[in-house]
């Protein structure tokens, strides 16, 4: 990457954070903010202790427990291992002087929800976390990516990370979004198009009028699932929508630095003639509401479509992979997607657990009842999202419709806490991964938007929001 010439948003953030080159030729990249949770950090803190190393800059790190926490009766974590993990995080953060939002703090929630919510996430920053969905923060034009525990330890000890530059990919989505199509459908469509390894080695910049027309929450849903396309990170240029969202939040720049920050942020969007290693252009008019049928996020189809036939696969490997998925999912080729009957509905996660998601669901299920054979659960992304929803009366609408209203956490997105699918149960889920066993051993996940999940809760089958009245 040269220092002269037009630059992408990624190139600009990269060069601003380059501390230097080590003798082995690797780059040291400075990390502005480090988010820490209970599952991927204990071994990192233990490593520091064993080598007697301090945390380099404790103020740049913020910690919260989210993966493991119960969404009911949270004063008492019943699982002894989960309890130890949460307590270990509390102890480690206290020992090193790191800010920790505990379970009783209203600011507690999924780490990728609370970063933006608190104004911690800002354009032009580098942000890491021991969680692959750190890509979420790219919605603000921050370079944000997931790291392993050894790297968590490295960042704690040095506030830097060893990295080599990624390749630049731009995916432009143009045009007004068709009725019933929203950010979740866009990103599922994109993953279906480029595949789960399509973004490997790249940072994906999302551009085009459909993307820039999204709210910050919609943009976060897009960037969140970049990792499901294999990308290191997702990015969207910061603009007035971004600045308006950040202003006034607790950790946002105060009035004394606001103008200076906005001036810098405004310089970040990619230069017009910047070069990309890969470019994809999509017209949003070609996109339907999308649903996954298989066990990989690339296994997507229009809600109007059918379960694919393995014999139509282009390669032997693909055929085998479809057969394996269909067997796991208990689905027959050619089945109409809307004929698939559901057992559970999960609305939440760092992908779709924000206030706008909850508002959409409420507007769809208002004065209706969920189907008698389904169990439906809503897990707000944070304590503050929950509070906001309760102030707006959303909780009442949802409870009246038959939804369970829970405390904030990752919950059934990954089922580390007691919220899990039983073997063979089929779930409409607003989360991000439909891997085998992800939501519980033998559980069958169909990823979709909050709108589709809400409509599906009412009918009991996977449903097209466009047919739903």
């Amino acid at each position, binding site marked *: 990457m040269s220092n002269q010439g037009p630059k992408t948003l990624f190139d600009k953030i990269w060069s601003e954070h380059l501390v230097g080159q080590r003798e082995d030729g690797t780059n040291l990249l400075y990390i502005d903010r480090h988010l820490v949770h209970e599952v991927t950090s204990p071994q990192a803190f233990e490593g520091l202790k064993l080598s007697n190393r301090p945390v380099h800059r404790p103020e740049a790190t913020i910690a919260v427990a989210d993966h493991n926490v119960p969404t009911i009766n949270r004063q008492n974590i019943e699982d002894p291992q989960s309890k130890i993990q949460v307590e270990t995080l509390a102890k480690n953060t206290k020992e090193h002087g790191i800010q920790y939002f505990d379970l009783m703090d209203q600011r507690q929630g999924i780490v990728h929800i609370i970063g933006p919510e608190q104004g911690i996430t800002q354009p032009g920053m580098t942000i890491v976390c021991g969680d692959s969905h750190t890509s979420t923060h790219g919605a603000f034009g921050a370079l944000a990516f997931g790291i392993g525990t050894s790297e968590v330890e490295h960042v704690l000890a040095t506030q830097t990370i060893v990295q080599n530059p990624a390749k630049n990919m731009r995916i432009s989505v143009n045009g007004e979004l068709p009725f019933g199509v929203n950010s979740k459908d866009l990103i599922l469509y994109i993953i279906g198009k480029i595949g789960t390894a399509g973004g490997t080695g790249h940072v994906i910049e999302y551009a085009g009028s459909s993307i820039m027309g999204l709210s910050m929450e919609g943009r976060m849903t897009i960037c969140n699932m970049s990792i499901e396309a294999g990308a290191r990170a997702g990015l969207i240029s910061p603009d007035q929508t971004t600045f308006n969202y950040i202003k006034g939040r607790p950790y946002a720049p105060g009035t004394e630095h606001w103008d200076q920050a906005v001036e810098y942020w405004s310089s970040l969007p990619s230069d017009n003639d910047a070069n990309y290693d890969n470019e994809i252009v999509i017209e949003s008019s070609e996109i339907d509401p999308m649903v996954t049928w298989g066990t990989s996020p690339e296994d997507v189809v229009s809600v109007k479509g059918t379960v694919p036939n393995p014999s139509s696969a282009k390669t032997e490997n693909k055929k085998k992979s479809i057969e*394996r998925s269909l067997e796991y999912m208990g689905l027959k080729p050619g089945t109409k997607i809307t004929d698939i009957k559901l057992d559970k509905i999960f609305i939440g996660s760092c992908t779709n657990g924000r206030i706008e998601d909850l508002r959409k669901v409420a507007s769809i299920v208002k004065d209706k009842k969920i189907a008698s054979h389904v169990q439906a659960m809503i897990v707000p992304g944070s304590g503050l999202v929950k509070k906001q929803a309760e102030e707006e009366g959303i909780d009442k609408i949802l409870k009246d419709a038959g939804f369970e209203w829970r405390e904030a956490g990752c919950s059934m997105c990954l089922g580390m806490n007691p919220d899990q699918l039983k073997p063979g149960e089929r779930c409409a889920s607003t989360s991000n991964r439909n891997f085998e066993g992800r939501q519980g051993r033998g559980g069958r996940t169909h990823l979709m938007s909050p709108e589709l999940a809400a409509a599906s809760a009412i009918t009991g089958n996977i449903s097209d929001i466009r047919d739903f009245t």
Partner: protein
Amino acid sequence: MDKFHSLKGIAAPLPIVNIDTDMIIPKQFLKTIKRTGLGVSLFYEMRYDNDGNLIKDFVLNTSPYDQSKILVAGDNFGCGSSREHAPWSLKDFGIRSVISTSFADIFYNNCFQNGILPIVVSPENLDQLMTAAKNQIEFTIDLPKQVVKVGNHLIKFEIEEFRKERLLQGLDDIGITLGYKDKINAYEEDKKNKKPWLFKDN
């Protein structure tokens, strides 16, 4: 960190694409606060039935593959979560090298932090290696020469020089970076002036 120089043995074939980190080590085993002891839970849902009994025909449950140090797997190995528990469980089982046509970025990085060598080969070579693994032909992996030798076949692989050195010498990455502490401090001082809002520390 453990060094990696060369490796010899029978490789286990796992011809599945998109093996994700949830498959490698399911969520219930992420509650540990240790790095060790995860080998017994590697590929848990493929290896054990609902009652916790070994599924006899799963490759890593059959001899000689239950002793394999090398895994040959389908494309996009290690996709999904950033959990380092995935390489920890592979290593604890005894796997020191995984061969595939591609790896997910975070998993790839995590391997090197744990003395595991991920090797990228072409689809044609993967087919050959998968067959060799099924036929229980011995593999020899030579990192200095960057080759996998199976029978009379020599397959060359690429690896970034710094990663190779780190594996060969078992270097402590944090220790190396701390050698640049002055540069890190200077960077911070400079940015405090230029972007003060980033240092309005909580």
